[in-house]
């Protein structure tokens, strides 16, 4: 894997390749997601446990702590909502079905005339 330009020079070899691979999209989608989740997860953990020595104001921490759960539930609701909406608004093509049936009859008649033995 080649290194990306000068901007990655500060990182040790393997990490630079991993970063450039993510940004170039040569990782599989799964690995991209795992990478992203690991990044966000560790940021959340660091902030909630006060590992960086930051003292966030209480309202901030009260929201931050259950944030992953909130996001998961929202994602679930969005998925279900989208599926439900799409199913409800899906077009039902009765005209197309009728047209096809009549064309099938036409086709069979025409082909028999031309010598086809079904």
């Amino acid at each position, binding site marked *: 894997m080649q290194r990306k330009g000068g901007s990655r020079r500060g990182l040790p070899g393997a990490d630079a390749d991993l970063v450039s691979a993510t940004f170039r*999209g040569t990782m*599989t*989608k*799964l690995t991209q997601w795992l990478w992203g989740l690991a990044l966000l997860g560790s940021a959340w953990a660091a902030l909630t446990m006060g590992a960086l020595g930051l003292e966030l104001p209480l309202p901030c921490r009260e929201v931050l702590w259950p944030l992953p759960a909130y996001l998961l539930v929202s994602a679930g609701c969005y998925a279900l909502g989208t599926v439900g909406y*799409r199913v409800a608004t*899906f*077009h*039902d*093509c*009765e005209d*197309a*079905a009728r047209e*096809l049936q009549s*064309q*099938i009859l036409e*086709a*069979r008649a*025409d*082909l028999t005339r*031309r*010598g*086809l*033995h*079904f």
Partner: protein
Amino acid sequence: MASTGASRGGAASPRPPQGRSSRQDKYSVLLPTYNERENLPLIVWLLVKSFSESAINYEIIIIDDGSPDGTREVAEQLEKIYGSDRILLRPREKKLGLGTAYIHGIKHATGNYVIIMDADLSHHPKFIPEFIRKQKEGNFDIVSGTRYKGNGGVYGWDLKRKIIRLYRKEVLQKLIEKCVSKGYVFQMEMIVRARQLNYTIGEVPISFVDRVYGESKLGGNEIVSFLKGLLTLFATT
């Protein structure tokens, strides 16, 4: 990606009207078949009707995988009726799979565009001139039929992934080389690879009619297989 206008030495011939296929375009339809004795004559008749009505240059390549129901005999009759320049029979001895059927079919295709569809009337050929028009409008590498937008829709419950697509021949060749999945997941993988290679993709709303509506059942099996295929692609591309 590929530029068609530039490569087509247009000085001699007049430019075709916007959205119409030019005289030099030829469309090869690949029809892999297995036990389609009843449907094959109908799909061929509909294809011939759609192409002739729109004055489009075409050929239909029937790739039968040794069907035991006599599909091949019916195909031979169709070849006699419509001519061997329009109906090309390129059969194989046994069921060898969809991916290899396309590879086999492309080798014999003399068109510069390839249309892939199912032989079982799940898609009506009347949409093909619209695919062609859309491809010309946007100069797309691939045009895919969608049941979820515009006037698209379905008659009858169908969860099987039937796909109808128009490809530039060289794009299809490149994609088949790159894809590794089997069965219908292969069709999904083609679009994923196409996006990775920055090919342009257009969509045309189509309707699907389940001819045997009333006999088909809504199976949980299909949902499970689809999700498995999706996860496989997620983890491998």
